[in-house]
């Protein structure tokens, strides 16, 4: 083997050139690709408008819900019934304090539920309406992006789920969620105040949470495999005030409703692509 200085310098030079050039070349290729997909994504969002895009999840499903505000308005007490069905089953504590409130499903005034929609000169009836709101199970969930422990994640059916075991209570998700759908347990839900337990009637079938954990609606993911609708939808009974189904199944009832009715989503401009639609 002849190791001349000349040969060594040649090889060293070539290696250096390859080392510097290859990543730059790759970057250029990848960069061009990334730019292209970004552009495409933006275009899609614009096309899909406020209803988002038909992005397929692992199982091809994307569960969603239509809430008919008019029907809720015509059925006073129905919203409360839905909230009760949800909160009583899931052992949602009532701390008796608005600041500490734990909410899976709750009502909001129109102006707060749809701040992007103008209320200027709108009827006082609309302004006074109580609108049921819950986790939007976004197709592009900001809470999932910020969670440092993957305690919150999007499951195979497109449901934004929480694994309470992993939640460290950092509350990044609460800061990220633009809908206020997440609540933090400032106190031990099993505790009590003035001898009044925070969970008045405990449901045996569902665990509670502990202090320092965030919680939210799970679309009753545990009920869906057995073909049952979420508890709130079930509580609506035959009123059809809430319709639940797979947004990616063209034949589903929810898709028929979405096709035939005018619906809006909450804060669509943020690009979270909510899966909850409202008939106003």
């Amino acid at each position, binding site marked *: 083997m002849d190791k001349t200085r000349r040969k060594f310098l040649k090889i060293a030079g070539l290696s250096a050139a390859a080392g510097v050039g290859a990543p730059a070349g790759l970057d250029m290729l990848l960069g061009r690709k990334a730019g292209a997909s970004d552009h495409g994504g933006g275009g899609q969002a614009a096309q899909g408008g406020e209803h988002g895009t038909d992005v397929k999840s692992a199982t091809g499903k994307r569960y969603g819900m239509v809430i008919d505000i008019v029907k809720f308005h015509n059925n006073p007490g129905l919203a409360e019934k839905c909230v009760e069905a949800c909160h009583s089953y899931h052992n949602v504590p009532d701390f008796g304090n608005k600041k500490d409130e734990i909410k899976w499903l709750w009502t909001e005034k129109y102006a707060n539920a749809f701040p992007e929609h103008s209320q200027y000169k709108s009827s006082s009836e609309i302004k006074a309406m109580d609108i049921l709101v819950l986790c939007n199970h976004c197709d592009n969930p900001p809470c999932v992006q910020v969670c440092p422990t993957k305690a919150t994640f999007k499951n195979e059916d497109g449901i934004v789920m929480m694994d309470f075991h992993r939640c460290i209570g950092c509350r990044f998700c609460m800061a990220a969620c633009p809908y206020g759908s997440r609540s933090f347990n400032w106190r031990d839900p*099993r*505790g009590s105040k003035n001898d009044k337990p925070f*969970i008045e009637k405990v449901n045996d*079938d569902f*665990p509670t949470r*502990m*202090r320092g954990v965030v919680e939210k609606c799970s679309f009753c993911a545990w009920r869906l495999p057995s073909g049952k609708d979420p508890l709130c939808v079930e509580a609506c009974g035959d009123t059809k005030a809430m319709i639940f189904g797979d947004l990616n199944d063209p034949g589903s009832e929810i898709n028929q409703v979405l096709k035939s009715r005018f619906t809006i989503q909450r804060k669509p401009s943020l690009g979270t692509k909510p899966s909850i639609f409202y008939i106003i």
Partner: protein
Amino acid sequence: MYNPGRIIISLVIFVGLMLFAFIYNIGNEKEPPELKKPDKKYENCVEPLEEIRASHMVLIDEWRDEVIREGNRKKVEIDGEFYERSLQNGCLHCHKEKEKFCDRCHDYASVSPYCWDCHFDPSAVDKTFLPSENGSEEEASTSHEEVH
């Protein structure tokens, strides 16, 4: 060896101290606790006895991940019986009275799993949720104020 007398005496004391607990407890073997077994109906657990004894915590962890993350809620079938992959609705379905099963052994082994911070024994709801933590209430609300 410098100063062998001191070193050897110190070593003897050290070893003696280290072994004290063992020597002290010779012959004082503590009987393993007697656990309350489920009804005759449920003869076999979901895994062989030795395995479930040694690694039930691993199984429960795996179940959790399968159920929550993968959405696999298929029930486990043993001898024609179906069991939910769940601590509260699965394990405690047969092992009623966690105090006489889980707790007895956990106390004996001096482990305190935090399962029970959220899960609870359906047969002992009243005991678990008895209003008791009035003391910690103050603390909770003050820390809350600080954060806001």
